[in-house]
């Protein structure tokens, strides 16, 4: 047994028996899926490099701060706040915008996508609109929403609504399209009405696609809100980063970036957990 194998066993992340016995791993995705050991190693190495590099003064702290100063800023900002708002208020401001914009996008987008999947007329009418707006990056609308409603909450929420809307429309439309005709036929032969088929067959059948859409939309919204706050805002994580950069407070900028990354990652994990819980049949049909 190699040193690495022993180490893996020590921390309890040894590969399963089957994976260990495989002689062909190059090209077998399952055989290389478990890279937890290397994930730990890479994170540890990066952290070490950061720590050692700044301790030895390899980079000017204006360009890249030391871990200690980022940590100090984290402590001080969570306590005293930054620019009238505490750290948590900045985070919450960003999250709140996403939640509202994303929810509105789902609320309008999912029914619209369903209607497009179920009716030739609706599909025909909305197809060109959806196909036109879909490829436009939401950030391209920032100037427009600022003209319409300034730099307050409304403009951000409008922007995020827009970002989520098309993704959800397309996800819901794809969800309707994915239902096997034999399921629909079976439901009719079991005496279900159109309305019942919508609620009891088409809707649950499309949940996997809708959930995938939600995950994508959440990611896009998070990216969009931070970018929008960088352009114009009075609070939020993006705003914090933008102001700090004007004062060359690189430690706060980096702190903000780390927070953005962690929250984005957290949202995705949360969505995956939710998906596994709510749609256990996904991929098993």
């Amino acid at each position: 047994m190699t040193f690495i194998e022993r180490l893996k066993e020590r921390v309890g992340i040894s590969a399963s028996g089957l994976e260990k016995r495989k002689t062909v791993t190059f090209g077998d995705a399952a055989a290389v899926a478990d890279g937890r050991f290397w994930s730990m190693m890479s994170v540890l190495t990066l952290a070490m490099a950061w720590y050692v590099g700044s301790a030895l003064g390899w980079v000017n702290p204006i360009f890249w701060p030391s871990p200690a100063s980022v940590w100090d800023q984290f402590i001080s900002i969570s306590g005293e706040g930054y620019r009238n708002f505490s750290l948590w208020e900045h985070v919450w401001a960003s999250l709140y915008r996403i939640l509202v914009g994303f929810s509105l996008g789902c609320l309008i987008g999912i029914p619209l996508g369903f209607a497009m999947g179920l009716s030739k007329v609706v599909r025909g009418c909305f197809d060109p609109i959806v196909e036109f707006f879909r490829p436009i990056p939401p950030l391209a609308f920032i100037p427009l929403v600022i003209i319409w409603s300034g730099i307050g909450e409304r403009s951000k929420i409008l922007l995020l609504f827009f970002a989520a809307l098309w993704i959800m429309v397309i996800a819901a439309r794809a969800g309707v399209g994915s239902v096997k005709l034999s399921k629909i036929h079976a439901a009719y032969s079991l005496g279900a009405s159109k309305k019942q088929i919508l609620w009891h067959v088409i809707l649950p059948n499309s949940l996997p696609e809708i959930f995938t859409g939600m995950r994508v939309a959440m990611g896009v919204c998070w990216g969009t809100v931070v970018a929008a706050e960088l352009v114009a805002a009075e609070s939020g994580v993006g705003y914090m980063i933008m102001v700090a950069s004007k004062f060359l407070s690189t430690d706060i900028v980096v702190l903000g970036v780390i927070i953005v990354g962690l929250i984005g990652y957290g949202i995705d994990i949360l969505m995956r957990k939710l998906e596994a819980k709510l749609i256990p049949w996904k991929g098993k049909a």
Partner: protein
Amino acid sequence: MSELVVNNVSMIFDTPDGGTVEALRDLSFNLKQGELLSILGPSGCGKSTLLNIIAGFLAPTAGTVHMDSRELHGPGADRGMVFQQGALFEWLSVAENIGFGLTMQGRPKHEIRQTVNHLLETVGLRDFGNKAVYELSGGMQQRVALARCLANDPDIILMDEPLGALDALTREKMQGLVLKLWKETGKTIILITHSVEEALFLGEKLFVMAPRPGRIHKEYSLPFAEAGLTQDPREIRASTAFVEKREEILSMIWEMEEQIMGTAEV
């Protein structure tokens, strides 16, 4: 007592290249309550089309389908369907799948539970009611599909290659189950298959269909299904009468296939 009457049914499809396919030409037959009909034929001879017309998912270009004196338009709970696979609802448990029809009709909960439990027993899935359907094997899933169809107490059960995706052993077991259900429920059953053995074993009546245009090429009345209720199925399959019929039909279908290949080459 209800009788299915298929009267001069024709079906012509438009194809994407602007041509037409005559999937069925002038097909007529009657099926009395409790009869078991199997339909056999090379692929593309219109078997599924016929079943979809009877089920009400397709309107024939000519002809009618009646249940007694009532002309059929569109699907209904009086005709149950069993598909090859993938027609179960993965988001529902086995029991909820079986009770789906009754739930949709708003029947009382205790009645649904009673029917479902009875059917779970009938199809040999007594302890599987709370399982998810995707946890079951292919054969068990088809048992659920049969039970779901029976729960509605339809007049007639339409099956489109219901056992086609199963391995040979499971398939034989399921054939036994179909016979058992046929006997116990007295339902009219139409079963499409591409297996000659299955068609012989599961058909009181057997239609061999021919393609281009799709039509009934030959009709048989067979003793094997009836015998299968009491005798060992393996003995029946090995009997001279069975083997003779099988060879006769096999060479008939081979001939058709050769003709298809011949015309395709031209």
